[in-house]
């Protein structure tokens, strides 16, 4: 018995004519056209040319924000210090009972206090007062350090910057004010950018630590907000200046704008999960009865191949 023809599953054999088609010619024409359009547009409109934000630029423009961020790295309250995998042990985002980041483990270990504060300060040569302060800090008990941190935290609100010095009105914070002040001076000289880049390898292309430190402060977020680049501003789609950005990322950034994703502390992993689900849905369209019939029922293909269907009728 002959099986019934299923319109969205079975493929009838083509019995009509065949024409030769030069796909290399088409590809070459497309490449040349796109090249011409790109060159013409760049002549007329240029390209994004935003100067890179460095630790030096940040600490020069906003020394207090930098000093406060450095202190949060030292006392372990910064975003990076408490991020969890892949940087350190900490609570990561949850997708229901699953903690996907923890599955990957700590692959890029970062000790915020050591990597962003103590390590760079230890690399500064010929500073006896700083060397002594570092020794005092590292040999102090946890209770003593916490007392220094508390005193510094209380005085932080009235912190000021004058004559190239970070001024913190407290005498109970031990060596911490001197350490933060010297680190701020190091950052403003540009030496911290170099120290973070070259510490782990000869090749200076790994900006992970620099970017993590920048993202812990408020300066980067403020610059991003001005440029409409924050996650809450559909920033994933945008480019600096008035240039068009990555419009095709609309589906990813859309979820960050609406509840519950916009209000969830697990927003990233929830958006990831949603996109995996939607991608799977798209992948399995040919197997979903009803949905797989939509293109046939819409009939746009008849519009595209209208000459063929006109010839047939």
């Amino acid at each position, binding site marked *: 018995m002959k099986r019934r023809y299923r319109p969205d599953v079975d493929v009838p054999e083509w019995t009509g004519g065949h024409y030769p088609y030069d796909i290399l010619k088409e590809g070459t024409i497309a490449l040349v056209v796109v090249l011409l359009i790109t060159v013409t547009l760049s002549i007329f*409109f240029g390209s994004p040319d935003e100067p890179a934000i460095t630790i030096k630029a940040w600490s020069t423009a906003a020394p207090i924000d930098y000093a406060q961020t450095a202190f949060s790295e030292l006392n372990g309250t910064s975003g990076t210090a408490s991020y969890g995998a892949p940087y350190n042990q900490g609570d990561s985002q949850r997708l229901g009972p699953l903690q996907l980041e923890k599955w990957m483990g700590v692959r890029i270990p970062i000790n915020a206090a050591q990597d962003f504060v103590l390590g760079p300060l230890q690399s500064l040569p010929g500073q006896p007062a700083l060397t002594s302060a570092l020794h005092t800090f590292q040999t102090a008990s946890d209770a003593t350090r916490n007392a220094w941190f508390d005193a510094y935290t209380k005085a932080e609100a009235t912190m000021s910057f004058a004559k190239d010095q970070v001024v913190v009105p407290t005498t109970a914070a031990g060596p911490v004010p001197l350490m933060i002040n010297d680190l701020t001076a190091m950052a403003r000289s540009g030496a911290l950018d170099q120290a973070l880049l070259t510490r782990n390898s000869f090749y200076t292309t790994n900006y992970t630590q620099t970017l993590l430190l920048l993202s812990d402060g408020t300066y980067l977020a403020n610059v991003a907000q001005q440029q409409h680049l924050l996650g809450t501003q559909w920033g994933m789609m945008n480019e600096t200046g008035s240039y068009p950005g990555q419009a095709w990322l609309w589906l990813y950034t859309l979820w960050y704008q609406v509840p519950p994703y916009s209000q969830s502390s697990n927003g990233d992993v929830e958006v990831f999960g949603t996109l995996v689900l939607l991608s799977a849905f798209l992948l399995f369209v040919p197997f979903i009865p009803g949905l797989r019939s939509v293109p046939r029922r819409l009939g746009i293909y008849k519009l*595209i191949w209208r000459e063929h269907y006109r010839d047939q009728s």
Partner: protein
Amino acid sequence: MLVGALFPLNHLGHYLHWHFINVSVANTTVMILMIAVFVAAVALPFPGRRERKGK
């Protein structure tokens, strides 16, 4: 020699804001152009068709 663009776009952009939707004018322009290209691709006759019909 480096020369500047005729109409550089390195100034802050304009944005269209409607409820939770926030999209730049530049992105909107690109999206409209993409839709226009799609409509043109469907509407314009396929090149070479007439030539083949004559064969």
